[in-house]
């Protein structure tokens, strides 16, 4: 019985934290934002060196061969540091799609590139969780038409695309007939975008017996990853709020001595701490408890989003006016939590999914 992180997992988080801390996480995010960079090659290279890009990719394909709980732990650290780098799409969902539904040949071509950071993969999955503006992609004769919104890790070399029928496809970023449009969001650390397909050549990922089940698994996994990112971002906000409250003086005393401020911090911490265990459990369940995986992923995503949103507001309030400015940059975390909340389904949609999975909904 051990519900907790192994020594290796703690070391993984620590080494990543060291790297991101060293490279000045907020400062790097600011530059990424200011320059409107699509990618931060230095960050990506560092992540590749640490094995993050190849985290879940088998060793024979140049990866580290770790599991999805490990991926969630990495996601948490990236959220905590508002890291401007692809991960959820390129290092988790795309490799997973290839590993579960790709042919040996497709795996051999792409997994090493993704593992080394030589290529970045975007993932178009949004429509499978609820299509906005009637978007969606149709496959016909090996070609794709339609459009996909809110593509994860948008600044990519290749895309994994889910079609309306539950099929998965690989599409090169420079494929003919493919139009790519960046969609600017509140969160400037992770580009998302829109793909328009005009009879675009695609390679089916067709090795899985049940492609729709793979899509479902990608959604579950993505939700856990976003939950973990929010967990990290929210816990960074609490830490900053507590530190600021100890520092900041009003009425001749540190505001941390005011009961109202203390209770705001205590409420944040008390609400968030169980999310940590929930995210661990959900990450573990993905591969080890298949019967519970989907429902747990829904709850991890929805509950952590709700708590994260509250933490984002409260931590900003603890900072007073400073929290509202760009000076302390707290809003990078606020906005990261805001994006995570909606990706792959907002809390209401995800909870309805959880009810459906338990046959509670019509």
């Amino acid at each position, binding site marked *: 019985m051990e519900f907790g992180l192994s020594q290796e997992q703690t070391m993984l988080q620590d080494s990543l934290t060291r790297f991101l801390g060293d490279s000045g996480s907020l400062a790097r995010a600011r530059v990424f934002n200011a320059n409107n960079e699509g990618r931060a090659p230095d960050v990506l290279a560092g992540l590749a060196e640490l094995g993050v890009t190849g985290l879940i990719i088998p060793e024979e394909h140049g990866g580290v061969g770790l599991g999805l709980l490990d991926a969630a732990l990495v996601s948490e650290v990236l959220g905590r540091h508002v890291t401007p780098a692809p991960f959820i799409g390129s290092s988790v969902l795309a490799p997973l799609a290839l590993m579960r539904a790709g042919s040996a040949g497709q795996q051999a071509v792409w997994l090493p590139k993704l593992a080394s950071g030589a290529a970045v993969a975007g993932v178009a999955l949004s429509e499978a969780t609820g299509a*906005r*503006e009637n978007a969606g992609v149709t496959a016909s004769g090996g070609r794709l038409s339609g459009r996909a919104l809110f593509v994860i890790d948008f600044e990519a070399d290749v895309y994994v695309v889910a079609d309306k029928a539950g099929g998965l496809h690989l599409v090169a970023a420079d494929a003919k007939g493919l139009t790519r449009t960046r969609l*600017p*969001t509140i969160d400037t650390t992770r580009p998302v975008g829109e793909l328009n397909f005009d009879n675009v050549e695609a390679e089916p990922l067709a090795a899985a017996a049940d492609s729709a089940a793979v899509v479902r698994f990608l959604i579950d996994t993505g939700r856990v990853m976003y939950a973990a990112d929010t967990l990290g971002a929210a816990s960074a906000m609490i830490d900053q709020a507590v530190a600021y409250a100890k520092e900041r003086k*009003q009425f001749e*005393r540190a505001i941390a001595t005011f009961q109202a401020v203390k209770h705001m911090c205590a409420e944040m911490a008390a609400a968030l701490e169980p999310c940590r265990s929930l995210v661990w459990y959900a990450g573990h369940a993905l591969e080890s408890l298949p019967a519970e995986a989907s429902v747990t992923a829904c709850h991890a995503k929805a509950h952590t989003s709700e708590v994260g949103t509250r933490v984002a507001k409260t931590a900003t309030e603890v900072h007073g006016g400073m929290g509202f400015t760009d000076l302390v940059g707290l809003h990078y975390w606020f906005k990261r939590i805001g994006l995570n909340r909606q990706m792959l*389904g907002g809390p209401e949609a995800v909870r309805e999914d959880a009810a459906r999975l338990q046959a509670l909904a019509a």
Partner: protein
Amino acid sequence: MELSYGAEHEAFRREVVEFLQTHRDQAPGSGRGASALAWQKLLIAHGYAGRTIPKEYGGYGAAPDILKSRIIAEEFAKAQVSPGLGGQGISMLIPTLLEVGSEEQKRDIIGPTLRGERIWCQGYSEPGAGSDLANLRTKADLDGDEWVINGQKIWTSTAHLADWIFCLVRTEPDAPKHQGISFLLFSMKSPGIEIRPLIDMTNGHSFNEVFFTDVRVPAGQIVGKRGEGWKVANAILKHERGSLADPNVMLSRLNGIKELMRSETIDGRRLIYSPVFRDRLMRVEGEVMAMRCNDLRLLSGAVNNADVGIAGMIVKLQTTELRHELERLAIDVMGEMGVLYGEGAPHLRGNGSWQWNYMFFLGLIIGGGTSQIQKNIIAERGLGMPREPKLAIG
């Protein structure tokens, strides 16, 4: 209970409506260009701006009538026509001068300010003086017949556009903290002033930091006496009736969400058919309605000089939280669409106003007395609960 405004006021409303029909072509867009200044003059002449400011100071000189002011605001809003110039010179400095300014200050300053010829910014907050404003440290030393000012202000909106500043500075460093402050007026063109934009979380530039290095100001440019600045700054507080947020704006945002829910779809299904979001919408509608009724009560209390208990004291706390919540609902309704932001972003709804307001109202929850300060005030002044006991060590 009588919710109509009565015959006299309904007649006045017709006048306003008629004026708007006649002159709306002259109304300017945004900004402070020549047409805006001309429009302001026209409004003053008709008593729709500077209404209760005495004629000799450049106003229209009418007796105060809260309902008429409300009618003007309502009709201009309904017609979506500029209600004239705003800004802290007009909304804060002029009332202050009327209350405690010298005759000369009133004659010299109110007119140009009201006509938009002199734009002001307010120098109150400092990095170390937020909720505890009286803790301010920007100091002014008298050197001959000039003040020499050094220090820093923050949250100075429109500093980058302003001609002049009205500014709280510490002039008696040894006096108790509320008694060592003076209220100075000076030109923003004075040497030694540096303005740095203060970018906020909306990416917007609504505020600035202002740095003073040996800024020299004639000794006479003071309102009230030396050391009375705190009293001067608070002179107009007694007129406030807590009507920070116009409930009609809230209503129009609420209607905006209804529109969104009618048009926005998920898997082809319109969101108005989502019972969960509809329930949240109705919850917010109930709260908006309650705040509208609360506002009616305040208005009526002001008109009839009636006691409204704590109804005024709670407005800032409740409306800023409610607006933040309302804008958040819109974002959740839009789902992924709700995170889009930035000028010209594809698919952007409402020109990004939902996210902008969501963030800006978080700023307003904090600004002008955080929610924590508001709750202290409600508990102490509203419910008669004791102040926090003094600390053993200071």
